[in-house]
């Protein structure tokens, strides 16, 4: 029962707890330290290491028990630091030392409980047989890939028959929980480019350091709880009790008078541009991956390293991958020149490595941008005017072996160049999102040929769209850098606010009007109106137009069999006169 509690006393402090926990957890809540090796919140307690031994008094019986798996009960009196407990712990730790004494965590534990010279010697076996890994594999991963084998002094943790496991899902939970670091996952420290995502590579993580809201999110596709119905370790470990596995995606309907569309962009996928070798050569990466690599909060802590963990000696940055290219996008993505300069600066600053910038034209047009370009020239980055043509691993000379060869035409020198480098960064294009069409349809927008949303007028109405009250901000309208995006966003917000604050909108004079004298009440127009602006007046037997709903498309005007509807500014007389006019 959730509302039932039990009261026990630990070292003289009374505490009221739920009846289904163990003494160790109750002590933790009081802030009383009990040493333990084999306990992990969320996994079934095991009592293997036994160093959490405490003295319990129940009635007249006093005895030593392991606190991690001794359940609490009413009136229980616990002592964690009596002479008897200390002696018992010291012996336990000495016995642990006999096999594992040279392992860091055991050494430290020995110091903590006052064992200076273990009587039974010091061994160097890292596995203390606490069984945490076995429990993690069974309870978290539900993989049951490892277990105990043999008995007595022969006992070890291993896979069945000591063979490579078929059921291991390579989740790494066993290595993660191991208190002594006895389990090592091969390749876990290697940087894998296919996993160099924008966020950290854990199933629960804060997507980026700048995320809004800045809270972690669960990735159901990676999370063991969802994948294998196991784990669930994060929930009991969350002090705020904020983790809820039952949460589902939900559709929220919001009623709004104005909308700012800021759906952004996606980056060009260079795998289709095979000549750059992206996906084939591990050290060819996109700009966004390099951004992640050089980020202090990234997977390498900001260290610029190749896949093998070594720092590169030379780096080539290829501009205009997917931009200014007839095969992909004809437009200039505007931001790549400047971030490529930033990359060159970072490589020069952090590694002092040789950096090549392969550009078509340097477009450093913004405030302070040209000066930055100038600075890079002085910092020793090597600029080659010519688009990178191909990345291969084909070596001609001996010193080119193991390097990536970047081919390009140096149009200033008028020669073909082959550059041996360790790492290639592709400055990929910004392109319209693949789902931009859905947004376009939803809001009745227009898009230009390249897929970016079209503003109402490039000079006079740069944030408005053809739909009233819908505004554009940022890269959904076209590639732009952060200052431009912020400026456009502010403008869009101001436009939206000016509508909201006024509380009313001005209608154009153009709308349909029904001449009641002529209207026969046939109601053909009622069905046609996409805005339901035409209603039928039962009393007068005529149709009526609601002027504030009417958008003046004129569909009803064209359809009215009695000619009773007049489309203001586009009347029949006006258009017929226009026809006569153009045909004179």
């Amino acid at each position, binding site marked *: 029962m959730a509302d039932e509690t039990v009261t026990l006393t630990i070292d003289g402090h009374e505490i009221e707890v739920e009846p289904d926990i163990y003494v160790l957890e109750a002590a933790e809540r009081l802030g009383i330290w009990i040493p333990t090796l084999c306990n992990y919140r969320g996994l079934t307690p095991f009592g293997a290491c036994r160093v959490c031994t405490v003295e319990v008094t129940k009635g007249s019986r006093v005895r030593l028990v392991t606190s991690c798996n001794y359940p609490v009960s009413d009136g229980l009196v616990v002592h964690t630091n009596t002479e008897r407990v200390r002696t018992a712990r010291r012996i336990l730790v000495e016995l642990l030392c006999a096999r594992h004494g040279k392992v860091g965590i055991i050494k430290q534990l020995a110091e903590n409980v006052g064992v200076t010279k273990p009587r039974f010697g010091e061994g160097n076996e890292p596995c203390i047989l606490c069984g945490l890994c076995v429990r993690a594999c069974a309870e978290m991963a539900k993989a049951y890939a490892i277990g105990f084998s043999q008995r007595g002094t022969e006992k070890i943790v291993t896979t069945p028959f000591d063979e490579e496991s078929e059921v291991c899902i390579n989740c790494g939970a066993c290595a993660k929980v191991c208190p002594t670091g006895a389990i090592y996952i091969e390749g876990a420290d290697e940087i894998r480019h296919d996993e160099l995502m924008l966020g950290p590579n854990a199933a629960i993580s804060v997507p980026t350091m700048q995320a809004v809201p800045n809270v972690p999110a669960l990735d159901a596709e990676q999370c063991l709880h969802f994948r294998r119905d196991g784990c669930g370790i994060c929930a009991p470990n969350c002090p705020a009790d904020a983790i809820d596995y039952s949460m589902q995606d939900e559709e929220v309907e919001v009623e709004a008078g104005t909308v700012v569309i800021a759906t952004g962009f996606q980056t060009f996928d260079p795998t289709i541009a095979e000549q750059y070798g992206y996906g084939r050569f591990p050290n060819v990466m996109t700009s966004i991956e390099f951004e992640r690599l050089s980020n202090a909060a990234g997977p390498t802590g900001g260290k610029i390293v190749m896949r093998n963990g070594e720092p590169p000696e030379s780096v080539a940055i290829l501009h205009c991958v997917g931009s200014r290219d007839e095969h992909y996008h004809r437009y200039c993505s505007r931001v790549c020149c400047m971030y490529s300069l930033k990359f060159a600066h970072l490589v020069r600053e952090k590694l002092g490595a040789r950096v090549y910038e392969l550009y078509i034209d340097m477009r450093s047009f913004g405030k302070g941008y040209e000066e930055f370009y100038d600075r890079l020239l002085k910092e020793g980055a090597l600029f080659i005017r010519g688009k990178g043509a191909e990345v291969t691993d084909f070596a001609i000379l001996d010193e080119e072996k193991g390097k990536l060869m970047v081919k390009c035409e140096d149009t200033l020198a008028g020669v073909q160049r082959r550059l041996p480098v360790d790492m290639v960064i592709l400055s990929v294009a910004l392109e319209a999102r693949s789902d931009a069409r859905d947004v376009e349809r939803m809001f009745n927008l227009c*898009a230009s040929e390249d897929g970016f949303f079209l503003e109402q007028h490039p000079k006079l109405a740069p944030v408005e769209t053809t739909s009233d009250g819908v505004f554009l901000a940022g890269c959904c309208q076209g590639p732009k850098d952060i200052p431009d995006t912020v400026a456009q966003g502010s403008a869009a917000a101001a436009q939206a606010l000016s509508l909201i604050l006024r509380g009313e909108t001005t209608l154009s004079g153009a709308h349909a009007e029904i001449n009641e004298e002529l209207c026969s009440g046939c109601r053909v127009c009622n069905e046609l109106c*996409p805005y339901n602006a035409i209603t039928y007046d039962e009393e007068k037997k005529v149709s009526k137009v609601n002027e504030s709903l009417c958008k003046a*498309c004129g569909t009803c005007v*064209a359809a009215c069999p009695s000619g009773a509807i007049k489309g203001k500014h586009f009347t029949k007389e006006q258009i017929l006169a226009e026809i006569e006019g*153009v045909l004179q």
Partner: protein
Amino acid sequence: MSRFEPVIVGFLCNWCSYTGADLAGTARRHYVPNLRIIRVMCSGRVEPTFVLKALQDGADGVLVAGCHPGDCHYQEGNYKTMRRMTLLKRMLEQLGIESARVRLEWVSASEANRFVDIVNEMTEQIRALGPLKLGHFEDAEVSAEEAPVPAQQAAAK
């Protein structure tokens, strides 16, 4: 003898086709000067009467252009046009007017090139058909592909 220059009246919707034509202009794209444009808010505003009036007053062809299906600024005005134009073309055939003289096209605001291509192509097509002769359709030179059957049928009846 100088080349026959057809006169084409174009009804362009304000949001897609007119903007597309405008873009063709700002992009300095060249196209034949035979099209005379009338702006309407929606292709759905185009009454069949307008097309007939244009043909009656001397146009050799009429172009009606609107947003692509599903893209209408007024949600479904272009669908209404689509139905009306199909019926109108049938009626024109019965009157002995080649259906190719009236054309319904979808041109979006970004499709300046498409707009230019359509205007050029349509002008050539109507140039091939020759001037529209109302009231003398028996004498009109009708090409083998373009609507000879209804014209003959109409004459036979």
